[in-house]
C-alpha cells in the first residue's frame, strides 16, 4: 500500500518535472530556439520559447477557465469536456466493433490454420494503410447508406474508422491467447470428448484472458486515436478531433487555446485505457496463470 503511494508520488513528481523543465527551458532558452547551421535553413534542435510556441503552463491552465470563444460562450474546460464525452462515446463504439471483429478473426484463424496463413499477413498490411486515406471513403459510403438504406449518422462512420485501428491488437492478441493453452490441455479436453464450443468456453477463452487484456487496452488507446483522427478527416462536428483542428486556427493570437484539446485527448486516452484496466481487475481469476506460468 505504501509502495503504491510512493509510486503515485514519484509519478506526480515526473509530471511536475516535465512542467518544471518546460518552464525552465522557456525561461533560459533563446526565443528563437537553438538552431544548428544557418538561421534560415539550419536544423532547429531546441524549440522556440516565445509565448506563441511555448505558452506558460499557468497560462494554458488559466485559459481553461476562460470563455471558449469570448463573450458568453462556456468556459473552455467545459467545451473540452463536451468534446471528450462525444469522442469517448464514439471511441467506445469503435472499440466494441473492433473487439468483436478482432475476436471473430482470431477465432477463425485459431480454428483453421489455413485461415491464419491467408489472413494474418493482410491483417498486418492493413495497419500500414493510412487511415486518412480511406476515412473519407467510409463517410461517403455511410452517407450513401444513409440516403438509400437506413439512417447512418456521421459518428457511426467515425466509430467504424476507429474500429479499424482497434481490431488489430485484438485479432493478434486473441489469436495468441486462444492458441496459448498447452497441448496437454487440448488433449485433456479431447479425452473428455468435449465439443469445439465447450473447449472454447472452458479452455481457450479463459486462457486467452491474460493476452486479451493488454490487447484490449491497446485497442482502447487506438480507438481514441482513431476516433480523433477520423473526426478530423471526415469533418464530424462535436468531438475533440474537430476541436483540435478548429482551435489550431486561433493559435496565432490565442496560443494557449489549442493546448486545451490536446490535454483533453491525453486525459481521454488515459480514461479509455484505464477503464479497460478496470475491466481487467474483474477478471483476476483468469489471470492467476500469469504468475505461475
Amino acid at each position, binding site marked *: 500500500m505504501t509502495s503504491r503511494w510512493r509510486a503515485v508520488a514519484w509519478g506526480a513528481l515526473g509530471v511536475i518535472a516535465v512542467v518544471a523543465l518546460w518552464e525552465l527551458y522557456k525561461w533560459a532558452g533563446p526565443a528563437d530556439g537553438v538552431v544548428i547551421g544557418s538561421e534560415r535553413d539550419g536544423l532547429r534542435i531546441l524549440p522556440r520559447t516565445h509565448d506563441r510556441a511555448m505558452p506558460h503552463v499557468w497560462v494554458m491552465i488559466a485559459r481553461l477557465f476562460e470563455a471558449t470563444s*469570448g463573450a458568453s460562450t462556456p468556459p473552455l474546460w467545459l467545451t473540452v469536456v*463536451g468534446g471528450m464525452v462525444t469522442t469517448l462515446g464514439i471511441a467506445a463504439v469503435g472499440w466494441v466493433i473492433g473487439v468483436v471483429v478482432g475476436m471473430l478473426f482470431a477465432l477463425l484463424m485459431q480454428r483453421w490454420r489455413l485461415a491464419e496463413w491467408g489472413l494474418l499477413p493482410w491483417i498486418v498490411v492493413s495497419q500500414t494503410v493510412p487511415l486518412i486515406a480511406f476515412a473519407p471513403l467510409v463517410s461517403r459510403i455511410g452517407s450513401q447508406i444513409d*440516403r438509400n438504406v437506413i439512417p447512418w449518422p456521421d459518428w457511426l462512420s467515425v466509430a467504424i474508422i476507429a474500429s479499424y485501428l482497434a481490431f488489430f491488437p485484438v485479432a493478434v492478441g486473441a489469436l495468441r491467447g486462444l492458441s496459448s493453452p498447452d497441448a496437454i490441455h487440448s488433449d485433456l479436453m479431447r479425452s473428455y470428448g468435449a465439443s469445439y464450443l465447450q473447449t472454447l468456453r472452458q479452455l481457450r477463452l479463459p486462457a486467452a484472458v491474460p493476452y486479451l487484456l493488454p490487447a484490449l487496452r491497446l485497442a482502447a488507446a487506438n480507438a481514441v486515436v482513431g476516433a480523433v483522427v477520423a473526426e*478530423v478527416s471526415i469533418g464530424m*462536428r462535436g468531438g475533440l478531433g474537430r476541436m483540435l*483542428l*478548429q482551435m*489550431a486556427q*486561433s493559435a496565432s493570437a490565442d496560443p494557449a487555446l489549442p493546448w486545451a484539446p490536446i490535454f483533453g485527448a491525453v486525459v481521454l486516452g488515459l480514461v479509455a485505457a484505464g477503464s479497460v484496466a478496470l475491466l481487467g481487475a474483474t477478471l483476476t481469476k483468469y489471470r492467476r496463470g500469469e504468475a505461475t506460468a
Partner: protein
Amino acid sequence: SGTTPDTSSDSASGDFEPITDISLQLQWLPQAQFAGYYVAQEMGYFEEEGFDNVEIIPSGGDIVPQDALAAGDVDFAIAWVPKVLGTIESSGVELTDIAQVYQLSGTTQVSWADSGITSVADFEDKRIGSWGFGNEWEIFAAMAADDLDASSVSVTTQDFSMNALLDGDVDAAQAMTYNELAMVLETVNPDTGELYTMDDLDVISYEDTEGAMLQDAIWADTERLADDPAYADASVRFLKAIIKGWVYARDNPEDAASLVWDVASNAELAYPVGPTHQLWQMNEVNKLIWDGGTFGEIDSDSWDKTIAGALAAVNQDDQHLITTDPPESVYSTEYLDEAIAALQDEGVTVDGTYTPIDVTLTEGGK
C-alpha cells in the same frame, strides 16, 4: 409533401412536387465568408422561397464540397472554381456554376515589409506558404505567368494559424484578405507591444496578378438540373433566397456579422473566431462580392483568366490542374437570370457597390 412556394416559379410547368428540403455544403467553418446563406436562413428568406428545411453544412477542409455534391450528399455546394475544374477533369463528373458569388479573388501572399517580396517575381528561391488542398493553384498560375516553375520556390504547407509567417518559417504566407490577413493584424507585435499593422506587411493580392482565379461560387449537379425540373426550380428559389441574404449583408454588415457570430457560437461546439474578426471578414467579403456588377454574374474576362491560369499552373509534383478546357456545362446563367428577374419584380436591387466600413481589429479578434 411541402408547402406551395408563395412565389410561383414560372420556369416550371407544374408537373412536379416542389422540393422543400435542401442542403448546402460550405467549404469552411461557419463565418462571415458565408454570411449570405446564414442570413437567408435566420431572416426566413428560405421559407419565403418555399423551403422548410435548409441544412447548411460547414467543412473544416475535411469535406470537399464538390465531392459531396458529386456524390449526391448535398444539393448545392460552395467551392472555388479552380478546385472544381480539377475535379471535373480528373473524375469526369459534371457540375455547374450557377452563381459566381465572389467576383474577385481574396487571396493574397503576405510577407514582412522588410523582406522585399512585393511581386510574384520575387518568389524565386523563397519559402512560400500555402494551405495546399487545392488552394495553391493561384500561386502556381501567377508564377507560371512570371515564368517561374514550382521547383524555383520551396512550398510549405501552412496550418490554420499564421504562425509560420510570424516565426519566419515562410517568407510569404498565403492569406485571405478576409481571414488570415486579419489573424496577423490581431496579433501583438512583441517589439512594440501593439498589434501588427498593415505597415508591417507587404501584401501581394492575386487579383492584381495573372494568377487570379474565381472563388466562392454556387455549384449544382449538371445532370440533375437538366433532368429534374423540381431541382431546377429549387435552384432558382435557392438563389433568390441567398441573394436576399447577401443584399442584407451588404446593407447591414454589422448586423450580418453579429448574426453569423451568434449562429457560429451557438452551433454545437463551433468555437468561431471572435466577433470583431467576423465584422472585418464581413466587410472584406462584401468588397469581393459587390464590385459594381450584378450579383453572381460570371464576368467572362475573369472566367477566361481563371481557365488560362488553370491550364498554365503546374505544381511541385509536376501535375497540371487541368489540361483541356472544361465542358460547356461548367457554368450556366439561366437560373441566376431567372432568380434576378423575379427579384427585380419584387423590387430587390441586386446590383450595386458596397461602401466599406472601418473595422478596428482587436487582439484575437474578440
